[in-house]
């Protein structure tokens, strides 16, 4: 098929050449050991961050290590795809663990769309800056500790329109300055994607040996396609995958109690887990109140 503009020969844009050549043209070695040090890094707003995170001396890392050492288990909740229920799963997991008489905290790393304050009923509470650092808020649900940019903004409709480096700085500040005290579990709720926030938190946490990541997906193919990328991200970053949760697997009709699939589900989540040899933590229908223990039973041993 020829295009109207093609006065000359057309050729297929070689995928590797486009992305590698493009990357060379952009000059962003963020994922390599040259991050922050290459000539093209001069003037880049992310340079400081890259320099700190690429084997150079990061002043914040030692403070973060101290904070994190007081926490027994650190778990990230990831997805890649938005709207699959990461925050819901993170919140319910936190509350369920707290009910088992453990001390739990949730750090909401979604700076653009922080949902955790609403889910854990801490909206309207103010964050106090004590001599030990930022005091996390306490949820009325099982006393789960919460920190989120939503707590700092209140219920404002003002969006947080920040580019990557600024978001990364705030995340480092959350990790460094939040006074969690001793916790059994700290759960990190993340935004969708595989970008600045994820790179920053994983690089900061790898020094303190997190338990790993719980991946959340819904059954549709388009969500599973994105989860594959997330698995690829975790493996590239040497982050252990605790398991995968299949959320919104079906809907229980409150009238006739019949379970129907809202999204097409042909066992894709289980098959994906088998393919990648990742534990399948279970499915959660659209009725989280009765079903959250469903997947906890599967994850209880590994946690």
């Amino acid at each position, binding site marked *: 098929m020829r295009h109207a503009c093609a006065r000359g020969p057309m050729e297929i844009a070689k995928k590797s050449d486009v992305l590698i050549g493009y990357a060379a043209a952009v000059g962003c070695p963020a994922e390599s050991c040259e991050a922050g040090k290459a000539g093209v890094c001069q003037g880049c707003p992310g340079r400081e961050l890259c320099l700190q995170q690429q084997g150079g001396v990061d002043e914040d890392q030692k403070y973060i290590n101290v904070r994190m050492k007081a926490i027994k288990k650190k778990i990230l909740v990831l997805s890649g795809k938005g709207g699959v229920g990461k925050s819901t799963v993170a919140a319910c997991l936190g509350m369920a663990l707290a009910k088992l008489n453990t001390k739990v905290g949730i750090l909401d790393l979604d700076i*653009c769309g922080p949902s955790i304050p609403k889910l854990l009923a801490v909206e309207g509470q103010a964050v106090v800056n004590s001599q030990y650092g930022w005091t996390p808020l306490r949820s009325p649900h099982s006393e789960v500790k919460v920190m989120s940019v939503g707590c700092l903004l209140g219920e404002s*409709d003002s969006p*947080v329109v920040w*580019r990557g480096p600024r978001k990364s700085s705030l995340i480092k500040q959350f990790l460094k300055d939040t006074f969690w005290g001793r916790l059994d579990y700290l759960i990190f709720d993340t935004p969708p994607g*595989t970008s600045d926030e994820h790179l920053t938190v994983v690089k900061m946490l790898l020094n303190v040996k997190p338990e790993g990541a719980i991946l959340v997906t819904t059954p549709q193919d388009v969500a599973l396609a994105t989860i594959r990328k997330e698995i690829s991200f975790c493996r590239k970053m040497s982050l252990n995958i605790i398991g995968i949760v299949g959320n919104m697997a079906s809907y229980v009709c409150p009238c006739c109690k019949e379970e129907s699939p809202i999204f097409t589900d042909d066992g894709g989540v289980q098959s994906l887990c088998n393919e990648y040899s990742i534990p399948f933590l279970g499915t959660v229908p*659209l009725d989280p109140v009765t079903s959250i223990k469903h997947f906890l039973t599967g994850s209880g041993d590994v946690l």
Partner: protein
Amino acid sequence: MSEKEPQNILKGVQHVILILSGKGGVGKSTMTTQLALSLVQAGKTVGVLDVDLCGPSIPRMLNLENNDVHQCSEGWIPVYTDPSKKLGVMSIGFLLQNRDDAVIWRGPKKNAMIKQFLTDVVWGSLDYLLIDTPPGTSDEHITVVENVKNVNPDGAILVTTPQGVALSDVRKELSFCRKTGIPILGIVENMSGFVCPNCTECTNVFSTGGGESLAKLCSVPFLGRVPLDPRLTQCVEEGKSFAEVYHDTPAQKAMTDIVDKLLVQS
């Protein structure tokens, strides 16, 4: 290749529309693809630009995975759905070696890629260019808005689901549009109600009416309410137009109404 600006490369495009949300998983990409297919059915030429670099869904939703991007002397040629070239698509999904490869880029690299999408893709003459965005208000959104402002976009369609957590993110997105001077074409409330196939009772999985209330509160047009229909998901996964395959369904009627409002507004 000489320095290009979006206003030059997009001068053949009559209407530029952004599909935004703030919240993830509300159906932006689904709405974008179904709107595109419905506009084509209405006789328009349409382009879809997918600027979600981390989770590019558009190629899959239009059954275009594993296609190659061709280059000509003037730039990259969009991938067309069929020989009629009524619907062309550009996405990073076409540029990945392996569809499972993650794009793990920090902001500056994403910005440069998006700018290249806006300056190097040769769309030619289009009635509509729909720009599908990732959730949030970050690098991708700032870069797209900075670059399309000079081409006088028609505005943004905001997609939400009815529940509170989605609405609060969409309110932020509305503020973002107002601050950046992007006109708001209206709000679509997606996944609004589910008709149980067993007892045909319509229940509100995520409550209902929130999108319409928000539109009234913020004085923006309410474009319509699309219910949850598993057949819509099936069409999306098969790259088909739901409005074409399933007639006389509430979801199809809702999609048709939204397209009609869009055609009237433009």
